[in-house]
């Protein structure tokens, strides 16, 4: 890895600017796959010829830099890093015949496929939006014909009306039609769902705070709710035997990891 310069204790102005650029970039990505796709472009080859090994190293280098710069990365970025480190070792080490599961090549091929597919969907999305659009490039009849001859009343309702009507009854008085005020609340269920998904990837002890969903760490209300929910979810998962929890001392970071299988 060629990032010795970031190890330096004193950062030069240009390095600080680079660091800031990095922060902006991390925030600009829609998750690790998006970041990987961007990194893959620096290889300047067709996505079909991409070197997944090189890509894994690029990604790990990127994460490493971010760590050095003390940028707080969302959990899914760290999860991806752990997985890519694992993939890298699989790709580099000679295959162990006793080992279960798919080969490094298979995993790499699937990652390449995911990247190619995501890129393809972005391309067609752009093509779609570039098409002529109704109300912008072509137009409908402005004067819909009204003939006052036979007037019949029909009643209509949309699927949304129907579903909301049903929800209104089933949730009785509690129901309020689509409001945003629970936006900043993370429920235990949501936290559990999230953590169950992520914990499978996390290799080693990770700070529970790194499981904060993206965008939630800045707003104090959201941060508080997510922290509480994540903590409660960790307890649940520990109770279920899925993870282990530790804390060095009072007020030290709470760390969790997946319970080793054996």
């Amino acid at each position, binding site marked *: 890895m060629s990032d010795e310069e970031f190890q330096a204790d004193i950062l030069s102005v240009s390095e600080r600017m680079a660091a800031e650029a990095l922060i902006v970039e991390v925030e600009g990505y829609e998750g690790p796959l998006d970041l990987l796709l961007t990194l893959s472009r620096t290889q300047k080859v067709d996505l079909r010829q991409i070197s997944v090994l090189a890509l894994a190293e690029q990604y790990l280098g990127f994460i490493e830099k971010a760590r050095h710069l003390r940028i707080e990365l969302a959990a899914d970025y760290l999860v991806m890093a752990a997985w890519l480190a694992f993939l890298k070792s699989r790709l580099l080490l000679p295959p162990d015949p006793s080992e279960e599961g798919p080969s490094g090549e298979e995993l790499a091929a699937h990652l390449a496929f995911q990247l190619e597919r995501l890129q393809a969907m972005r391309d067609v999305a752009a093509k779609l939006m570039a098409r002529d659009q109704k109300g912008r490039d072509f137009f409908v009849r402005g*004067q819909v*014909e009204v003939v006052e001859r036979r007037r019949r009343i029909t009643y209509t309702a949309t699927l949304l009306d129907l579903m909301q009507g049903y929800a209104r009854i089933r949730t*009785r008085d509690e129901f309020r039609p689509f409001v945003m005020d629970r936006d900043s609340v993370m429920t235990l269920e949501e936290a559990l769902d999230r953590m169950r998904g992520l914990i499978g990837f996390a290799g080693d002890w990770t700070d529970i705070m790194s499981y904060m969903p993206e965008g939630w760490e800045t707003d104090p209300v959201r941060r508080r709710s997510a922290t509480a929910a994540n903590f409660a979810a960790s307890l649940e998962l520990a109770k279920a035997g899925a993870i282990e929890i530790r804390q060095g001392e009072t007020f030290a970071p709470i760390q969790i990891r997946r319970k080793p299988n054996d």
Partner: protein
Amino acid sequence: MTDDADTTETEIEESLFEAPPMGEQERMVEAVLFASAEPVTVAELTARMPHGSDPSEALVHLRKRYEGRGVNVVRVGDAYAIRTASDLGYLMQKETVEQKKLSRAAIETLAIIAYHQPVTRAEIEEIRGVSVSRGTVDQLIEMEWIRFGRRRMSPGRPVTFVVTQGFLDHFGLESARDLPGLKELRSAGLLESRPAPDAGVGEEESDDDDEGQSELFEE
């Protein structure tokens, strides 16, 4: 669609000063009259069309073109509009239909029937917590969104209600089973509230039973 793809530099330059050919002007008038919500005056056409255009002449051509067609270019005061040929007015009966939003009571009744069919009137009232007026059910039957199902084999043999094919067509559903359950409504952001304290019930309708919507009311 673009006809004149390879106009030369000079032609483009000229077109800045010359009016487009009459055939093009006619197309422009046609499109504007079609898309406009109100009859359009010649002055307005002139303002909208490229400099040097002659909408009056284009209108003469266009009116001629639509003579005897299913729609005609007609003069309304000092403006122009495209209108259905008067002899075809009878085809427009469907366009005179007036649409009204279904009442809340009717929507709720319909929703209960869709989610719980076959369901009796008493059951609908139990779920809604209020009585169902005769008019509401009649209205839904008249709209052909619900119909009578099989009679329930319980005392009094009450009739049940089910939704119709017309209902499915209207709401773009393949079957009533494709209606999303509460959980899915919530995750799609269509409702926000928690289930009421008494409602562990609300979630059960990710039905694995293949017949009927739910067994809730089966005896």
